């Protein structure tokens, strides 16, 4: 439950009205050249992609060097092995492939003399029922137009643990925020969930697209840890660390086998 986040939001609003922020110059270390694996496989037939990059120093421009020449394979529990080809530098893809719900997939990446292995299972899909918008009670307004908040609606299946991740685009631009939730407090309910964010202000007329992913528990923990670190830190957050990955030996990134479904709403 996002109780802590609610308090943090309220606090932020109140505290930020008296406080002051400024950009500062910090001397930060340089632990770059670590492998970053971002592997995804979905239940929708199409191109499945694994991206290999390296991390870079904080002070550098955001250009992440691709890792080329790696051997990348995805196998399933019944023994099928799919080889991914490097279509562009660092992007390893396979076309016309669909993952199957309930199936566990294993990603194998061999590069730089090391082999990395990760396992993830596509959960049973949950249907994203609808999207609605409403005036953001915390958002205020601009030129008489209220800021809007997007709400997702779905029926959570009773008796099983479900985890969800959302990705939001406003007029084609991805919102820089992480949205994940599980059903610890909502199991079996018809759920309405507000996707609160502070990156892009949404007004009437904007076109909002939401992708809903049903993800397995290790991937949920990965995103949840990342989400809690991205909270602005008002009211305090945990000591930040690299989120717990499902890749062995541990490196940066994750491998997620998930379902996917998207809906688009024109905000009224």
């Amino acid at each position, binding site marked *: 439950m996002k109780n802590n986040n609610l308090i943090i939001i309220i606090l932020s609003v109140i505290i930020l009205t008296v406080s002051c922020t400024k950009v500062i110059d910090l001397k930060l270390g340089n632990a770059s050249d670590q492998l*970053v694996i971002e592997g995804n496989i979905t239940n929708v037939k199409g191109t499945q992609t694994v991206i290999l990059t390296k991390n870079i120093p904080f002070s550098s421009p955001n250009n992440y060097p691709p890792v080329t020449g790696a051997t990348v394979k995805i196998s399933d529990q019944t023994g099928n092995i799919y080889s991914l080809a490097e279509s562009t530098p660092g992007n390893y893809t396979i076309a016309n492939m669909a993952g199957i719900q309930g199936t566990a997939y294993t990603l194998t990446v061999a590069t730089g003399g090391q082999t990395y292995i990760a396992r993830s299972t596509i959960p049973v899909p949950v249907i994203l029922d609808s999207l609605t918008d409403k005036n953001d009670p915390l958002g205020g307004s601009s030129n008489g137009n209220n800021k809007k908040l997007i709400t997702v609606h779905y029926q959570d299946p009773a008796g099983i643990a479900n985890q969800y991740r959302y990705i939001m685009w406003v007029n084609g631009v991805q919102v820089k925020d992480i949205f994940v939730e599980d059903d610890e407090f909502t199991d079996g309910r018809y759920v309405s969930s507000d996707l609160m964010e502070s990156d892009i202000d949404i007004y009437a007329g904007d076109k909002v697209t939401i992708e809903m992913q049903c993800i397995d528990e290790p991937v949920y923990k990965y995103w949840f840890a990342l989400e809690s670190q991205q909270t602005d830190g008002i009211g305090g957050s945990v000591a930040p660390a690299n989120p717990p990955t499902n890749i062995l030996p541990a490196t940066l990134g994750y491998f997620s086998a998930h379902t996917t479904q998207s809906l688009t709403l024109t905000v009224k």
Partner: protein
Amino acid sequence: MNKLSLLIAIMLASFSAFAQTTFTLNGTVKDAATGETLIGATIRFREIPQSGTASNAYGFYSITAPQAQYTLLVSYSGYETISQTIELTKSTTINISLSAKNELKEVVISANRPNNDQIASPQMGVEKLNMSQINNVPVLLGEKDVLKTITLLPGIQSGGEGNTGFFVRGGASDQNLILLDEAPVYNASHLLGFFSTFNSDAIKDVTIYKGGMPAEYGGRLSSVLDIKMLDGNKKDFTIEGGLGLIASRLKIEGPIDSGKGSFLISARRTYIDLFAKLSKDSVVKGSSLYFYDLNAKGNYHFNDQNTLYISGYFGRDVIGLKNTFGTDWGNSTGTLRLNHLFNAKLFSNTSLIFSNYSYDIQSFLTNEDFKATSEITDVNLKEDLQYAITGSHRLKFGVDIIHHTIAPGNITSSAGSSFNDISVEHRYGFENAAYLSDDWHISDKLTILYGLRLSEMLLLGPGTFNTYDADGNTIASKTYSTGALVKSYLNLEPRFSASYQLTDENSVKASYNRNTQNIHLLNNSTSGTPTDLYVMSSNNIKPEIADQVSAGWFRNFDDNLFEFSTELYYKWLQNQIDYKDGATFVANANEESQLTYGSGRAYGLELYLKKKYGRFNGWISYTLSRTEDKFAAIDNDRYFPATQDRTHDLSVVGIYKLNKRWTFSGSFIYATGNAVSYPTGKYNIGGLTTFSYSDRNGYREPPEKRLDFGATLQGKEHRKYHSSWTFSIYNVLSYSNPYTITFRDSKTVPNTTEAVETSLFPKPIPSVTWNFKF
């Protein structure tokens, strides 16, 4: 005969009354103007230097000495010393009234030397704050604050701006036992840490133990902050209060039954949200943000043997946002105590104590409404006895039984809500303890205070208890019936301290103590969010244990006008608790699966120079320290600096009384920044710039610096009333101290990242309060 048996033989000999006939002098020490009992006043016979004793928490004292004529000296900081000749030919009761000193007159050093407690007492690692100092130290928005002021003392670190959490000798903030009239206060902060729960109008005495904990205290590792409420004026009915920018307070006190008893009621309410109403921002405008608290106390002196005290505290914080979300939280405590004097040497106090901390969070949104509540309730029965057996032995012994009930989380919602109703099983347990200690004046040079505390933890059913492995997976689960024993722990805690007086103005001291802790706070946010969840030691969580050794040199100058002390300490910590990544504790039935366990160590040097009296008084305190933790799950089991590790911590406080009407004060602090984890690299995940981290707490926030000024103007004397103005300026030099530092994509230079510092009070904040008294 070996050394140990020699020691025992000497001890036994010293207990037995020698052939001489001895008599006992006892009584109560009080303030002459208000009848308030004085805690920690020094009472001694000039002729027997080691006869010195201090009045206890109820003002009671007892001295035993051979038949003779003596000069009785009674002194208390800020009061005129009394010197009285007495003929001790039989056991006698003498009640003593001391008058408050007028600091202006006190330019000539009085003939009776002020007390040199800090030299003679074996107790070390203890600090006592005088309420007049607390009242004069400048603070944020003029709300004088006990917790803010104690962080200006050596070895006690502030949690940073906007945080009343404090860290004693490297211990975590939940390792402080905070007592208000003996009742534990679980969450000592208001408004998420900007103010403390203690209204200084209602407080008589503040004592903090950093080391060498006396055996009568237990249950927390790092410190005991013992706060005693005022009893109420026994002579006159008075009303006093203050009107400030953000808060107002009112106190009413007076005698009951012509001075046989007294009462006090003190209340405080903030109204920051009234300012919010002026805001143009509709969200801020529609928010509520305030706290209130109420202290009440009454006492009745039945006869010289029996006095009854009843006291209570109730406080609540409320934050709400425009029919959207609301949260409120607070403590309530109650204490019923009976002082009974069995005889002139044996003093008893029986306490029945109640303490509760609870919070509610509510969402009023359509389809997303819920109400989550959580609370901890203690009922505590305590019996403490003080037995001044002979002139050189003072025993303290007693028992303490605490029953805890923890309701970790309860969620209710409407039928149309997204949320289920959930009730997490309650947890029940007993914390029992028995202790014995002896304050032994071996010679006029050597004094030792030694004791033992036996503490027991019993975790009881009903409920289902899971046992988790290191990865948080359930490996066993067992259901227990009501009252069935789930897990028990027994710990023996030795306490020892000794002082050797080299000269009248010069002593060395050493101490060792072990403390254990069976109630643990789970809250992984760094500042005081109200969602505190407490858990008891269990099948998964072992009692936390701390062993501390310390040594110190104490030196007074100029007839005790100046006090200097230096202490060295080293502390070992076992069974410390930290949280796994992404842990949540709200209404979580499996909260113990999210914990990881480790150890810690803390060591440091404290220097403290204080000028106690005179028109100009104040202190300089400096601490050099190191605090490190080690967890198998973090940084490969290597020691890393704890967040509160603070290499340098300096405080300078000065108070100057210019004339009868004006008093000026100033304080300056400098502290090394918190140890924090900053990114050492970045990468892209899911279209988002993401930061990578290396060592835990491998960086430092910039140091915290601040200079504050305060002034008090006393109104002209009136027969019927008295008034005064308090002015303060917080952060005079506009230092911008970091509250948080965050990292994000740059808003100005595309395709780069930047670090952003948020400061809460980067500009000077003036405030004014008008105080009155009838």
